[in-house]
């Protein structure tokens, strides 16, 4: 059962199907072959994910899917986590699809996987800050100028949801990646996913291509969904990391005895087990909180959970690498990739420090 959540029959089946997909299709060597190719094949599993109906699970019936609830998001993230996918399923469908739907746009092509979106929003440490990138009105168009740094999946995306600071506050745009004046500089993320810097120099967008919605609320909702998604992922990954590590400690022998016999290592393993339970409990809390109406309390609960999941997940990842010894830092060992995925999560949807600062603000711990 995913995070002890009350799941429907469909959700349970989805979980089983995706877990099977991960064990059959996401082995570490095939992944390496795809990602070490030149250029890397970062969409290798995309079609299969779409055929399995993952996009539909992430979209509400109104948007043409059959899910879209926090539990659906949790099931998808939890089941897929050990597969270490670099495909943009969460961002393109789970976040951008959701935003398009909120603005009354058709999500059909996104749901079918025919069009892939990236979310070009964060500029500094904290994506909950309003964007500074300029959107100046000029007759029937907005003119965009500025930089969106290291936008995850922007290398493989066809289209972008871009946030900017317009004449009346934050605006969201739906934009083709090949728009004139937009320069895409690809980069890579620590978990091998792709990204790109997006330089906007006088990019002209028709006014009709802005998303007709309460942009600030839609962005916040997307970010919260993102944080909950990686909390669920962290819980699953911590579990997978512990499973691999504890199994290894029971197999590997040094000094004529199994590593699992060393008490120092037993205590490290115990801390990992504790951390994994904490991460699971907080991921559960976050999923439940996401189902509530927007409120400061909902934000607080999700921020707390995301900080706890980062701390616990990262501790588990570091300890696993250490307990595997040299094998832990080998590219051929899955835990070395789990640790890198934890490092990536720590910086997704803002850095951990930025989340901590925001929590301090909500709690009134500081002077602001």
């Amino acid at each position, binding site marked *: 059962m995913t995070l002890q959540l009350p799941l429907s029959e469909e959700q349970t089946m989805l979980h089983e199907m995706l877990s099977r997909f991960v064990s059959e299709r996401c082995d570490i060597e095939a992944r390496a072959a795809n990602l070490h190719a030149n250029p890397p094949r970062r969409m290798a599993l995309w079609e299969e994910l779409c055929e399995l109906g993952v996009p539909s699970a992430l979209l509400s019936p109104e948007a043409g899917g059959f899910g879209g609830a926090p539990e659906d998001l949790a099931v998808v993230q939890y089941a897929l986590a050990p597969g270490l996918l670099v495909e943009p399923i969460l961002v393109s469908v789970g976040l951008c699809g959701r935003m398009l739907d909120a603005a009354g746009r058709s999500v059909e092509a996104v749901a079918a996987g025919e069009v892939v979106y990236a979310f070009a929003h964060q500029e500094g440490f904290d994506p909950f800050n309003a964007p500074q990138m300029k959107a100046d009105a000029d007759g029937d168009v907005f003119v965009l100028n500025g930089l969106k740094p290291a936008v995850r999946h922007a290398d493989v995306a066809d289209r972008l949801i871009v946030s900017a600071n317009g004449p009346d506050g934050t605006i969201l745009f739906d934009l083709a990646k090949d728009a004139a004046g937009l320069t895409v500089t690809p980069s890579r993320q620590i978990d091998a996913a792709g*990204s790109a810097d997006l330089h906007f120099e006088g990019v002209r967008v028709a006014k009709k291509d802005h998303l007709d919605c309460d942009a600030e609320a839609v962005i916040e909702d997307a970010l919260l969904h993102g944080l909950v998604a990686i909390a669920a992922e962290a819980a699953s990954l911590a579990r997978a990391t512990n499973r691999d590590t504890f199994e290894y400690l029971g197999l590997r022998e040094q000094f*004529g005895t199994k590593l699992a016999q060393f008490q120092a290592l037993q205590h490290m393993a115990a801390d990992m087990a504790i951390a994994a339970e904490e991460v699971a409990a907080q991921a559960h809390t976050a999923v439940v909180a996401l189902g509530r109406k927007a409120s400061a309390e909902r934000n607080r609960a999700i921020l707390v959970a995301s900080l706890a999941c980062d701390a616990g997940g990262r501790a588990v990842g570091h300890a696993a690498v250490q307990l595997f010894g*040299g094998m832990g*830092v080998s590219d*051929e060992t899955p835990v070395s990739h789990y640790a*890198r995925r934890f*490092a990536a999560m720590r910086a997704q949807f803002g850095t951990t*420090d*930025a989340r901590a600062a925001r929590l301090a603000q909500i709690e009134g711990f500081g002077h602001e």
Partner: protein
Amino acid sequence: MSDDSIAEFRAEVRNFIAQSLPDDIREKVRRYRDLEKSDYVRWQKILQDRGWFLGSWSKDWGGEGWDPVQQLAFLQESGEAGAPMVIPYGVSMIGPVLNKFGTDAQKERHLPGIISSDVWWCQGYSEPGAGSDLASLKTMAVREGDHYRVNGSKMWTTEAHWADWMHCLVRTDSSGRKQDGISFLLIDMETPGITIRPIVTIDGQHHTNQVFFDDVMVPAENLVGEEGAGWSIAKFLLSHERLSISDTGPKLRLMGRLRAMNAKVQKDPSVSAGLKAILAQRMVDASVQIETLRALEHYFVEGWAKGRPAGADASILKVRGTEILQALSELAVDLQGPYAATHDPVDLHADVTGEGEDSAAEMASAMAHQYLYGRCWTIFGGTNEIQRNIIAKVAFASAG
């Protein structure tokens, strides 16, 4: 050496590096690139010309006979000023071993290449089944006439792909105590039967390897010391490494980088006061840790000069040095803000000779590399768990 003359020596090292470190290497180090073998060779030759490459070798061996205080001064200043590290496998490991245990013929044959850095060495100790428990190593060397026939495999052999020679621990006897059946062999990497399999590590780079021996015939004259003396020779060699372990120089340099990065964030009007306060607190923690490491290192070194027993000092430096490096590198990554998850291993090899500074993504890759490779430090050179076993043992012994 007096405090004054040490201060003078430190200034001399700094000046020398300012004047003699080739610009391209300086630039690579400053920008946290991965260095090529040729970069290390070039720098080591420059040090040798200056008379500092053999600083820690005794005068009998043709060295400078630096005491630990002076060795530390050199290491710290070089590291902080951005000079490449001296690769230890030759000059710091096999060189002292040959000086102490080698035959005249072995010295004659091997020392000149080590001293000139023209012959490159690697260290073949660990095996797939023998890491922390090194004494259980299984690579067999069977005497056949005037050769040893070597079969087995070495694991994690760093820079084996650069090496001309390996100093290798092999098993020549399986009958008695495990340690007593280990011998110390010098193996020419060109010998037929040797294959090298690259191992890519968590940082996405190829530094280390697995080396296979398939009926490799090694002349018996390449045995160092007696058969069965390998274990005690290896222990001698590792005790020689005491000082380079905490390696504060590069950490001080990384701290300098953190200061610069943090200063930039603190000036950024788009960053909230709350976030600035959190980062400032983390900078304070980092600063206290690195200064404590530096103090500890000085304290130990001065203590040794005054007859302080080495005890578990080297283990303490290893644990703290590596864990502090990890803490600094984690902060270095977090300070990248929107680039905090950016890491492309290819960036570590990007050209530095042209105009212009690194992009934000390239800088982030360099810091992510520090973070990822930083995970290796608590594993190699005796894992931190093994070091803690030693520290506890010494601490309990001195209490009882």
